[in-house]
């Protein structure tokens, strides 16, 4: 005698196919499976129960709204990514009024002065690699800026290109460098955290 399986017996993929067919019961099962892990994930960042709940609600509402279009391979990974996105969306909306930004203030801005030989070495290496990887013209431009501390006007004269171009390119390079440094900083912080 065949017994109909309980919804908890269905795989994530099955449930996703079912919600694409408007199966509310399958959606409920997805909620049952993941609400806690997602709330947990959001709350680690927001440290605020009601804000965390808002974020998770949006994750699920969004999943239901896009159930017919979205192609999901791993539901848990998808939901965690969606939570991260909704947390950032919340941060943006609340104009940074959150504990989540503490790290920007306390860690990222001060780490540069931290007496960490590991950090210095890592950052120096990153910097050296980055300069080396620049195309010849940009490499030259950046070294003139860095070593000789020339103004953009003088660099433009020396390289015989418009000053605007120098300004633009240096701007792009500095921005790129900054994000790379931040990235490795975070990375190093993550590593240190795990030790």
């Amino acid at each position, binding site marked *: 005698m065949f017994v109909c399986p309980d919804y908890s017996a269905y795989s994530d993929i099955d449930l996703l196919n079912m919600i694409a067919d408007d199966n509310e019961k399958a959606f409920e099962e997805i909620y049952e499976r993941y609400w806690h892990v997602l709330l947990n994930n959001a709350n680690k960042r927001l440290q605020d129960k009601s804000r965390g709940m808002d974020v998770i609600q949006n994750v699920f509402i969004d999943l239901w709204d896009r159930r017919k279009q979205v192609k999901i391979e791993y539901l848990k990974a998808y939901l965690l990514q969606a939570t991260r996105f909704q947390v*950032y969306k919340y941060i943006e909306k609340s104009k940074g009024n959150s504990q989540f930004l503490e790290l920007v203030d306390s860690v990222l801005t001060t780490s540069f002065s931290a007496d960490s030989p590991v950090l210095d070495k890592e950052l120096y290496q990153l910097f050296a690699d980055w300069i080396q990887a620049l195309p010849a013209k940009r490499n030259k431009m950046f070294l003139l800026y860095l070593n000789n501390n020339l103004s953009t006007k003088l660099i433009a004269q020396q390289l015989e290109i418009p000053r605007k171009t120098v300004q633009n390119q240096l701007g792009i390079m500095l921005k790129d460098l900054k994000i790379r440094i931040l990235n490795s900083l975070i990375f190093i912080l993550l590593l240190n955290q795990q030790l």
Partner: protein
Amino acid sequence: MSNPFSKKQFLDLVKKYISGKTNPEEEDFLHNYYDYFENKTDGLSDLSKTELMEMKDQMKNSIWSATALTNPVIGKKGLVFFITQNIKKTVSAAAIFIGIITVSVLWVLSKQQATKSDNTQQLAKQHNSNIKIQPGTDKAILTISDGRIITLDSAGNGIVATQSNTVISNNNNQLVYCNDKKIDLNSIPLFNTISTPMGGQYQVLLSDGTKVWLNASSSLSFPVNFYGGERKVELTGEAYFEVAKNKASPFIVKVRDMDVKVLGTHFNIMSYTDEDRIATTLLEGSVSVSKGANSRMMVPGQQLRYYNKGVVEMKSNVDVEQVVAWKNGKFHFDEADIKTIMRQLGRWYNIDVVYEGKAPETLFGGIIGKKENINQLLKIFELTGRVHFKIEGTKITIKK
């Protein structure tokens, strides 16, 4: 170095991220930044279980009302479920079970005994060269009320679709309808149709627990969910039913202008349009069959025949094993003429049958497996010496 990165710059980056304009490095940064908090406490662990469950239900309510979904039954889960269960219990307690003993009939090969000869082997060799004709297999086509058409066979296992929260899955050679017992009684019933081609057969487990075996070249239309009142399905061709008992909700099979009404029982209906009758055979329980103003009750072992010419005949003590042999993987003939036999074979082997001259009048009887090679099968008939076959492609010509 002074403050290389401010809150404002971070928020600008987040803004970029939300609108999907960040480059991979910037994205990496925000992802890493997010990951940095992975080992922080979440402030949830010091909550009591009750508080946590309240949060869960509160979120659920907001999600469900925002998406305009049917309100989940929070805190009262399974209420509807219990009510239906109680009804079911009462019903099954009151239902009557009548078991019958079926007697298998032994295989009698015509009136003549066949003897093995060289002739046989030659015949087999000749027929074996023909591989165009194959026995039927488990296959069918499902048409869902939203227009989707799904091919079913024993290979395509898994969930086929869901409708009105009822999960339709293909389970080997059986199509299964599972509902969540929380169906909305006011919903409009959705109808699905399963059809077998020539050379196909399939099984369906309906959402009320009724099991249906569908023979070749047949179709069954049925509601995805049964909403109380009558359980109505419509059949063409042949099917065997094991109806789940529910006294409160009679099960009705509509065949052309005939209705077979049951409360829970086992029966077979044969209504192929190329046969001269509709035959309803009862194996267990009781059914009432009505056609026009006429209505008849049947008891197990009876077969009610409505002939196309208008004659009605009730036969008692029929060999029910023979009637449902098809669902048990067998052909079972009992004093059947060659035309009757060939119609059955035709539906299963998907062959065209042609008669050269007058068809033989000999009556045949016997049991043959449905997986049998057509050549072996025809050979058995030829051994009687009363009939001969010629096979060309999928066409079979019958001679005296």
